[in-house]
C-alpha cells in the first residue's frame, strides 16, 4: 500500500459498513479529509443480515437513491406470523405504494449494499482502504484518542477524530472502556441460508410481481429458545433463517443449523422452499439489548456509531439496524466535522453527536422502545402467547356441528387455561406492552 498520509487525516473511520460509510460521506461532504479502514477485501464481505433495508434515511445521501441502489426486490408484502409446531396465525399486509418511490423496504445483499454506500462516500472524496484491520487505538499524552494502528507495515493512521463503526463486536469501543457490560445476554445470533430459486417460482409462490418482494417475520419459530424466524425474497433466491438469544442457544445445546432446519420444516414454511438449493450459509451476531445496554457514545477524540454502539432496533415487530447505522453514521460524521471546524475534538466538543441522535429516530426510537427487548424475549411472549393465539384462532374457525359455536370469551378462556395463562398475566403483560409500544 502506498504510504497513507503521514500528516494524518481529519478523521479515520473504522469499518465500511452502513455506519462507517455514512460517517465518511458526511465528513467528506463537509470538506474534511477522511479515510475508511475495512478489514474485508470489499465492503460487505464480512457482513450478514436478514435482508431488508428501510431506505428513507438514504434520502440524505442521494435524493434519488432508488435509481442506483442494487436492489433485489421492493417489499410490498409484509407478513407477521405466530407459530406453534403445527399451527400458524399471520397478519399479512400488502401495499402497492411500497413498490414505487420513495419505497419502504428493499431486499438487497450486503456485498452489494455496503459496496454501493461506500462508493457514495468515495465519490464525495473519502478514501477507502480495504483488507486492513484496525488493531487498536492510538492515544496522545493526555489520553485523547488520536488515531488507530493497523495490521499494515507502518500502518498507523493519525486523525483528529476516530469514528468506531466496527460493528457488533466493537473491540475499539471496548478497548476505549466505553462499554460497562457486554455480556452474552445482550446479543442474539442470526443464522441464515440463501436458497437459490427461479424468479418465476418466487413470484407465483409468494404472489408477487416482477420486482416485488415479501418479508416474513415469525415468532414461536425457535422452540424453547427466545428468538424468531425470517424469510425474505431476493430476485432469484430466498433468505431464510433464525435469530436466537445467545445464552438461550448455549443452554439449549442445540446446533444453529438445526434450528434453521426446523424452522424450514414448519408446515407453513416448508412448501415455500420446495426444490430450492443452498447457495450460501452464514452467521452473525446482533446487539439486541437496546437503549439500556448501549455504551457511552463519545470519548475524547472518538465517536461510536451503529452496531458498535448496540444500535440495532429489535422489538419483535421490527428488526432494523442498517437504517439506524446510516442515521448514526451521518450524525457522527456531521458532529465530527463541526468539532474539527471549531477546533475542539474533546468529548465536550463532540457532544453534538448525542444531541443529534436524540433529535432523530436513532435514539428517539430506542428511548421510546427501551423496554421492548426484555418484553419480546420474555418467556410468555416467546412460548405461551403463540400457543394461546393459535389455539384460539383454530377453535374460532373450527366448525364443530352439531355443537353450537362457543363464544369468543369461552374460547379465549379455554385456550388460556390449556396453556396456563392467567388473566393477571394477561393484564400485566398487556400493561407492559402498552407502556412499551405506546
Amino acid at each position, binding site marked *: 500500500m502506498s504510504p497513507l498520509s503521514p500528516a494524518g487525516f481529519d478523521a479515520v473511520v473504522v469499518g465500511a459498513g452502513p455506519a462507517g460509510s455514512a460517517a465518511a460521506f458526511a465528513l467528506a461532504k463537509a470538506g474534511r479529509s477522511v479515510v475508511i479502514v475495512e*478489514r*474485508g*477485501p470489499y465492503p*460487505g*464481505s*464480512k*457482513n*450478514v*443480515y436478514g435482508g431488508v433495508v428501510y431506505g428513507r434515511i438514504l434520502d440524505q445521501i442521494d435524493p434519488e437513491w432508488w435509481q442506483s441502489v442494487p436492489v433485489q426486490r421492493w417489499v410490498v408484502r409484509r407478513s407477521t406470523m405466530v407459530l406453534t409446531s403445527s399451527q400458524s396465525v399471520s397478519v399479512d399486509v400488502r401495499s402497492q405504494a411500497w413498490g414505487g418511490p420513495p419505497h419502504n423496504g428493499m431486499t438487497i*445483499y*450486503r*456485498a452489494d449494499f455496503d459496496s454501493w454506500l461506500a462508493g457514495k462516500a468515495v465519490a464525495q472524496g473519502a478514501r477507502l482502504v*480495504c*483488507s*486492513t*484491520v484496525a488493531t487498536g487505538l492510538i492515544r496522545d499524552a493526555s489520553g485523547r484518542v488520536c488515531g488507530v494502528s*493497523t*495490521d*499494515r507495515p507502518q500502518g498507523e493512521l493519525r486523525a483528529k477524530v476516530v469514528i468506531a463503526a466496527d460493528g*457488533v*463486536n466493537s*473491540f475499539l469501543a471496548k478497548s476505549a472502556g466505553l462499554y460497562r457490560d457486554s455480556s*452474552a445476554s445482550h*446479543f442474539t*445470533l442470526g*443464522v*441464515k*441460508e*440463501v436458497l437459490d430459486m427461479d424468479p418465476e417460482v418466487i413470484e407465483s409462490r409468494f404472489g408477487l410481481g416482477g420486482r416485488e418482494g415479501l418479508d416474513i417475520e415469525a415468532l414461536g419459530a425457535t422452540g424453547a429458545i427466545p428468538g424468531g424466524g425470517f424469510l425474505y425474497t*431476493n430476485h432469484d*433466491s430466498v*433468505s431464510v433463517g433464525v435469530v436466537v438469544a*445467545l*445464552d438461550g*442457544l*448455549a443452554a*439449549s*445445546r*442445540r*446446533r*444453529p*443449523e*438445526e434450528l*434453521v*432446519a*426446523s424452522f*424450514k*420444516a414448519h408446515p407453513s414454511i416448508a412448501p415455500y422452499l420446495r426444490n430450492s438449493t*443452498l*447457495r*450460501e*450459509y*452464514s*452467521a*452473525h*451476531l446482533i446487539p439486541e439489548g437496546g437503549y439500556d445496554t448501549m455504551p457511552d457514545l463519545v470519548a475524547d477524540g472518538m465517536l461510536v456509531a451503529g452496531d458498535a454502539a448496540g444500535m440495532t432496533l429489535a422489538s419483535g415487530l421490527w428488526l432494523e439496524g442498517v437504517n439506524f447505522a446510516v442515521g448514526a453514521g451521518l450524525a457522527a460524521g456531521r458532529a465530527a466535522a463541526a468539532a474539527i471546524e471549531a477546533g475542539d475534538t474533546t468529548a465536550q466538543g463532540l457532544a453534538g453527536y448525542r444531541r443529534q441522535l436524540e433529535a432523530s429516530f436513532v435514539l428517539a426510537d430506542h428511548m421510546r422502545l427501551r423496554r421492548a427487548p426484555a418484553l419480546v424475549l420474555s418467556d410468555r411472549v416467546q412460548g405461551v402467547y403463540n400457543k394461546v393465539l393459535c389455539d384460539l384462532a383454530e377453535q374460532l374457525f373450527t366448525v364443530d356441528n352439531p355443537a353450537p359455536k362457543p363464544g369468543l370469551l369461552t374460547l379465549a378462556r379455554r385456550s388460556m387455561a390449556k396453556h396456563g395463562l392467567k388473566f393477571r398475566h394477561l393484564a400485566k403483560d398487556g400493561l407492559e406492552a402498552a407502556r412499551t409500544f405506546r
Partner: protein
Amino acid sequence: MTADPAGVSFGERMATVEFRVAGNAHITVDADVCASCTTRECVTACPANLFAETADGGILFNYEQCFECGTCYMVCNKEGAISWSYPQGGYGVVFRRG
C-alpha cells in the same frame, strides 16, 4: 461430517462459503483451560461447528472455516480459554449474499 437435517452434509454446507485462509490462526483455544470445562457451550453454539470434543475429553479447534462472528468467546464462561481476534486484513470469510 455430521449429517445435516437440510439434506446436505455439514461439509457441503460449509463448502458454500468462501474462505481465504490466513497462514496463522486468529483464534486460539487453550486446551488446558478447556480440559476442566464441563459445560462446553462452544461445541454446540459455534455456527461453523469448529469445536470438537476429543475422545480423551479435550477440545480440538480449527480456525480455517470461521465466520468471525464472536459467538464462541461470548458463550464461553472460562476466563482465558479463547483468545479471539480478527484474521489478517483481506483474509478469512468472504460473504457474497450476506
